[in-house]
């Protein structure tokens, strides 16, 4: 119909929509699904809902997404029946789980911890004996998922939280960036242990996740100071320790985390403040990263628009691009210690712990 219109009225030729892709990140752009329209019919309703929650950041954070995904997959497995002439081992992964995973990835790229967990789940499924009856196999798998969540996340978080809380002393000023659930747990634990300390929460646009952390801590009666990343260099001097969460730990010891974390670690390093990363081993990966451009996630540029601001119709401006990456990579030399459930290690030990974690599976 467009060509017909163009023939009929050649004067108002619709200008070709300009490519707003930022060249550095071209390889990372993926259309993000924001409604269930067009989703495969094989996708389970629980997963459909989860996908949307992820794409609009209702469920956000590496661990939260991992747990939610596994729980949704449990529902998928529960409602699964092996079709006649097939075995669960051969059928479940390729025909049922794959479309779920594909759909989730189309809503928001999978986190590294989710990738690790899915790899584990596939391995578990492949280990199911062909002769096991369906109900037993399903119950076993669900049990295994529960154990996995308990061991790798819930219990790991408790170990990390008490280990990190031990490091917080009376009079400490803890600086943290954005919101990490494990940092929050550690601070709450330290507070419950009766430690007297202050917290500085540094935050940034567009997600303002730190605001939730600051509110939660302030509600507990912890003295909290909140600033945006423009106040970082002023506040770093007051801090005594920097606690950071992680999206993933790379095998070359670098930290892959919310965009802006690298700046915080850099400033902490400059001011000689110890930087502690709290990270479950499920977030470790064998992948390596040298900069923040090779692996990353590009969020929709429209998230940067402030309602009523000048950016509202930025898309009409020629040659103007908005860039909204989600993560950055912090050099290993800025990190003094990684607190994991398997102990406190330097960044150089990440590949070792990762191998140990995988072999134990």
């Amino acid at each position: 119909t467009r060509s017909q219109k163009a023939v009929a009225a050649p004067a108002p030729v619709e200008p070709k929509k300009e490519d707003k892709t930022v060249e550095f990140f071209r390889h990372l752009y993926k259309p993000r699904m924001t409604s269930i329209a067009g989703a495969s019919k094989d996708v389970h309703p629980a997963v459909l809902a989860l996908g949307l929650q992820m794409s609009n950041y209702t469920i956000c954070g590496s661990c939260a997404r991992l747990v939610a995904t596994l729980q949704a997959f449990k529902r998928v497995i529960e409602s699964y029946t092996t079709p006649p002439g097939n075995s669960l081992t051969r059928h479940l992964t390729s025909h049922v789980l794959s479309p779920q995973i594909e759909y989730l990835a189309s809503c928001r790229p999978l986190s590294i911890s989710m990738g690790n967990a899915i790899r584990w789940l596939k391995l578990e499924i492949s280990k199911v004996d062909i002769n096991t009856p369906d109900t037993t196999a399903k119950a076993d798998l669900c049990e295994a998922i529960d154990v996995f969540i308990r061991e790798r996340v819930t219990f790991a978080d408790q170990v990390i939280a008490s280990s990190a809380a031990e490091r917080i002393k009376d009079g400490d000023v803890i600086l943290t960036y954005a919101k990490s659930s494990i940092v929050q747990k550690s601070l709450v634990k330290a507070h419950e242990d009766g430690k007297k300390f202050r917290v500085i929460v540094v935050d940034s646009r567009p997600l303002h996740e730190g605001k939730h952390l600051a509110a939660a801590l302030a509600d507990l009666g912890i003295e909290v100071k909140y600033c945006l990343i423009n106040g970082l260099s002023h506040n770093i001097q007051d801090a005594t320790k920097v606690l950071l969460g992680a999206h993933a730990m790379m095998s070359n010891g670098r930290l892959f985390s919310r965009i802006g974390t690298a700046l915080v670690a850099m400033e902490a390093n400059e001011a000689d403040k110890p930087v502690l990363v709290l990270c479950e081993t499920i977030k470790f990966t064998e992948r390596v990263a040298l900069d923040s451009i090779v692996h990353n996630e590009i969020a929709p540029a429209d998230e940067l628009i402030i309602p009523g601001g000048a950016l509202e119709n930025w898309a009409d401006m020629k040659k103007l691009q908005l860039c909204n990456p989600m993560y950055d990579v912090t050099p290993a030399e800025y990190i003094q210690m990684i607190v994991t459930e398997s102990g406190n290690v330097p960044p150089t030990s990440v590949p070792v712990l990762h191998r140990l974690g995988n072999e134990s599976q």
Partner: protein
Amino acid sequence: MPSFQAGYAPNLGVFLKSLKTQQLESSIENLISLLKRRQIKNSRPCAIATAHLLLRVVAKFRWTDIGKLLERIREVGQRLIEAQPREMVVGNIIRRVLGMIRDEAKEDRNEDVSDSASNSQIGSPQRQHSDLGVAKAAAPPPTFSPLRFASTDASELAETSEDDVFGGRPQTGHRPPLLTSHTSFAVLNGVPVQQSMFNLLSATPSPLATPPGTSSPHGKSAVNAASLAHKIATTSKDLKAEVISGIEEIIDELDQVDDQIAAYAQEHIHSNEVILTHSSSLSVQKFLLKAADKRKFTVIVAESYPNDHEAVHAAVTGKSKANIEGADEMSTEMFVKPLSSAGITVILITDASIFAIMSRVNKVILATHAVIANGGLIASAGARIIAKAAKVHRTPVIVVSGVYKLSPEYPFEFESLIEYGDPGAIVGYQDGALVDNLEVDNPVYDYVPPDLVDLYITNLGAHAPSYLYRIVADHYKIEDINFHNPELQF
């Protein structure tokens, strides 16, 4: 003077307009309260307002002797600085005016001494200068004090043209102030006239001596006895006129400084470079636009949330700042087209993305609020982490700043320079309980130490940070540096 739109919101434009009609004392009070209420803020508007106010102070001053004038300006300056100590440029302008008055007085004295000795040389530098002025020289020849700038319209603006203040004569001898000047140009009936009897006799007027269009080369010799007598009667006013046109030159410099800086742009920006800049600055924007005339490159703009992001967004989308409340800088400036319309790809990023993107950046260009004599600078909050991130990536950091922002003060307590802004910009009242429970911190400025800066580009050229103290010495007199708190005087 640029024309202003009439408006009710008190801003620079309204203030400058009111200068013409208001009493001097109420103008001073007015500026003090405008500074206090931050209705005039940022370096350039403060500098322009200060210079215009001083122009009025000098014009209204009942001329007795130079010491009284210095004292008067010091007194006004002290009040302005106390009103807003963090706008360091106010102090800079006052110091420059003080220094300029001292120079004028000294020259006047010296002329009496050296009149006969040096009169044959007086003519040549000033002619050279007036010629350069017509040719719109970007910088004066090195023999001239950088305090004063060539400007096209200086002779039209001044009631009395005093081109000979540019003469680089040896300043020897100290004598009590003598307020008579014998060697100066005066525009009488639109004709520049040389006042010195010696010059009258010796000067063979060259065609270069006269600005084109004002008179014939022979206009000079047509000095009649009547005008000479008149001039001698008004000679005590010469110094005042010279001071006034000196201030007008400073005002002209403020007008032209961005274009002068931009003239260096093509030396520093090359094809296909990726330039990172921060916050919205007219100087930087003009600099990049000038480079865009010849080259294609990419500019990454960090938005400087939450204090300057609206201006940044307006600048990148090309929406007039006038629509945005509180942006009074633009009211005195022409609308500058957005970089993207000059064919440059502009990428807007959040401040948090700086480290991630720095590995692809070739150069960082920062704007400043004030530059300190040690080579450090005060810039929008966030500048420090940009400069530091650039340092760890070995990316050169260039600071673009007019010389008028260069302050001779050397604060040891850098925190005292930092201003804190509205916490409501970070946590608004819609956040309810948070407002009560949180301490919210919103610094407006950052101190960037000199070791994070690689190069300064001013209207005088490009300098290493370690050289700035020299430019400070050229621009301010030692005795004026701590004029506002004399107990610190060395």
